[in-house]
C-alpha cells in the first residue's frame, strides 16, 4: 500500500515539474525583456536594473529557471506589479471566496445531476431519459457568460429578486452572502451538472449491464435495492475519480462567473491580472490553479486506493 502511495506521489513530480516549466515559459520565452514585461513599460531604468539583477536576466535561461523555482518552492511567488502586495498573500486572500463559490456550485450541480443521471439510466430510452439527456446537452452547450447575463437580466434587472452582483463574507452577513451566491453558483454549476449527469448516466448503464447487478436482480433484490445498494455505489466511482477534472472546470468557469458577478475570488483575480498585465500575479494564479488540480487528482487517487484495493493492482499492471 505505502509503496503504491509513494509511486503515485512520485508520479506527480514530473507533472509538477512540467507545470512549473510551462508557467515559467509563459513569461520568459515570449519575445521581449521579461523584466520590462513584469514591470510594465513605464518602469524607471533603476527599478528595471534591480529587477533584472533579481531575475538574473544576464544569466542563461535554465539558471534563471532554477533560481525562480527555488523561490517558488520556498513559497515566494513575487510581488504584484500593480499594488506591490505579495502574490501568495493575495492568492490566499482570494482562495476562500472561490472555494465557497465552487462548493455551492458543486452542491447545486450534484443535487441536480445525480438524481437526473440515475433516473435517465434506470428509465433508459424513455421520455425521462430523453428529457434529461437533452437538457444536459443544452447545459454543456450554453455559454456560461450568456447564461450569466440572461440571469442578471431576468432576476436582477427585471424581477429584482436577487442582487445583481457583488460579494459579502458569510461571517459578516450570511443571508446576503447566500443571496449573492445564487446566480453565480447556478451559472458555475450548470456545465458541471450536465457533465456529471452524462457521466453518471453512461457509467450507470454500464454497471446495470454487469453480471453482478443482473445476479442481484435474479436473486430477487428489489429494484430500488439494486439501484442504490449495488449499482449506484459503483456508478459513482467515475464521478468521484474525476474530481480533479471537475475542479479544473470550476476554476476555469470561475474566471467568467466571478467576472460577470463581481465576485472577488481567484477567477476574477486571474482576469484582472491578465487584463492589466500583472505578470507575477498571472504566473501565481496559473501555477496555483494547476497545483490545486494536480493535488486533488493525487488525493482522489490515494483515497480511492484505500477504498478499493484492486486499483493498486491495475495501476501496477498498466
Amino acid at each position: 500500500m505505502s509503496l503504491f502511495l509513494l509511486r503515485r506521489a512520485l508520479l506527480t513530480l514530473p507533472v509538477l515539474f512540467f507545470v512549473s516549466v510551462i508557467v515559467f515559459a509563459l513569461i520568459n520565452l515570449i519575445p521581449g525583456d521579461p523584466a520590462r514585461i513584469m514591470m510594465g513599460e513605464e518602469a524607471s531604468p533603476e527599478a528595471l536594473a534591480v529587477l533584472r539583477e533579481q531575475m538574473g536576466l544576464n544569466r542563461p535561461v535554465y539558471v534563471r529557471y532554477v533560481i525562480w523555482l527555488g523561490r517558488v518552492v520556498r513559497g515566494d511567488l513575487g510581488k504584484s506589479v500593480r499594488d506591490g502586495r505579495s502574490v501568495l498573500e493575495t492568492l490566499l486572500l482570494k482562495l476562500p471566496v472561490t472555494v465557497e463559490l465552487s462548493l455551492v456550485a458543486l452542491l447545486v450541480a450534484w443535487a441536480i445531476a445525480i438524481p437526473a443521471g440515475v433516473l435517465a439510466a434506470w428509465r433508459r430510452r424513455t421520455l425521462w431519459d430523453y428529457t434529461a439527456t437533452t437538457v444536459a446537452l443544452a447545459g454543456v452547450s450554453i455559454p456560461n457568460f450568456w447564461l450569466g447575463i440572461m440571469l442578471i437580466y431576468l432576476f436582477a434587472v427585471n424581477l429584482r429578486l436577487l442582487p445583481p452582483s457583488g460579494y459579502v463574507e458569510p461571517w459578516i452577513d450570511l443571508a446576503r452572502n447566500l443571496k449573492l451566491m445564487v446566480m453565480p453558483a447556478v451559472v458555475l454549476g450548470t456545465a458541471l451538472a450536465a457533465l456529471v449527469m452524462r457521466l453518471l448516466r453512461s457509467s450507470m448503464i454500464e454497471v446495470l449491464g454487469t453480471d453482478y447487478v443482473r445476479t442481484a436482480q435474479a436473486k430477487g433484490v428489489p429494484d430500488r435495492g439494486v439501484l442504490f445498494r449495488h449499482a449506484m455505489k459503483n456508478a459513482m466511482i467515475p464521478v468521484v475519480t474525476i474530481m480533479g477534472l471537475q475542479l479544473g472546470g470550476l476554476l476555469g468557469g470561475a474566471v467568467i462567473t466571478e467576472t460577470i458577478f463581481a465576485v472577488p475570488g481567484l477567477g476574477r483575480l486571474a482576469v484582472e491580472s491578465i487584463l492589466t498585465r500583472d505578470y507575477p500575479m498571472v504566473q501565481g494564479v496559473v501555477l496555483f490553479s494547476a497545483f490545486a488540480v494536480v493535488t486533488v487528482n493525487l488525493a482522489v487517487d490515494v483515497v480511492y486506493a484505500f477504498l478499493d484495493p484492486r486499483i493498486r493492482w491495475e495501476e501496477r499492471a498498466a
Partner: protein
Amino acid sequence: MMRPRAATAAATGTIDRTPAQRRTVRRDGLRYLLDRYARNPMALAGLGVILLIVIAAVAAPVLAPYNPITPDFDDLLHPPSRAHPMGTDDLGRDVLSRVIFGSRTSLLAGIISVGIAVAVGLPLGLLSGYYRGRLDDVLMRLTDAMLSFPFLVLALALAALLGAGLDKAMIAIGIVFTPSFVRLSRAQALSEREQNYVEAAKALGAGDGRIVWRHILPNIVSPMLVQASLATAAAITAEAALSFLGLGTQPPTPSWGSMLNIAQAYLGTAPWLAIWPGLAIFVTVLAMNLLGDGLREALDPRLR
C-alpha cells in the same frame, strides 16, 4: 481507474485523459460509422444546423440585409422591427446582419484552433505511441501538466501574452487543445501497434512510415473526428469567451462574443442585443455537440 476517465472524456467532449479508447469498433472504418450516424435523428439534426450555419457564413454577404459594419447614426438601439428583425445596435447597425456575419468568426475560430491542435497533436501522439520510450514519457508528463491548467485560465493567459486579435486567440485556443489530441492519437497508435496485422506488416519488411501511414492512421480517423467535432464546439465557446473579455476579435469585425460584451451595457434598455448573439453561440455549440455525440455513439452504440 482508466475506464471511468475514458467515459468522462467522452462526456465532456473536450479532454481525453486515457491511453485507451478500447471500445472503438476497430476494423469497420469510416463508411460504417457514417452509416450508423445517419440513423440517429438528433445527430442528423445537429449536422443539419451546422450545414445551415456554414451556408450562412459562406453566403453572408448575400443573406445579410445590411452591411454589418456600417453604422446608421439615425437609427440607434432600435427594437426589433420589420426592417430590422433583430433590432439595431448601439451604432445603428443591423443586429441580424451582424449575427449572420458573426458566424464566419465563430466557425473560423472553431476550425482553425482545432486544426492547429490536430496538426500539432496528431503527429506528436503518433510518434509517442508508436516509438514509446523516453519521448513518450516526456510527452505524457507534459500533456499531464498542460491538462492540469484550467483550460480557460491558460487560454486567457496565452491570448494576453500574444496580444489581442482573432488570430492570436485562435493560436492560444489551439495550443490549449493540443494535449487532448496528443493523448488520443497516442492511445490509438499504442493499441494498433500491438495488432497482428501490424506485426505482419513489419515481418514483411514494411517501414515505420508506411505502417503508420497505411495501417495506423486510417484507424485513428474516426475517433479523431469525434474528438475534433466536440473540440470545435468548445473552441467556439472559448473564442466567444475571449472576445467577451475583450481579448479576441477586434472591432468592427462582428463576433458573437464581442457583441455580447457590448450588449451588457444595454441590458436595461436594449435587451435584444444580448439575446441574439448568445442564442447564436448556444445553437452553434449545441449543434456541434450533437454532431460529436452522434459520431461517438455511432462508434460505440452501447452508449446510446
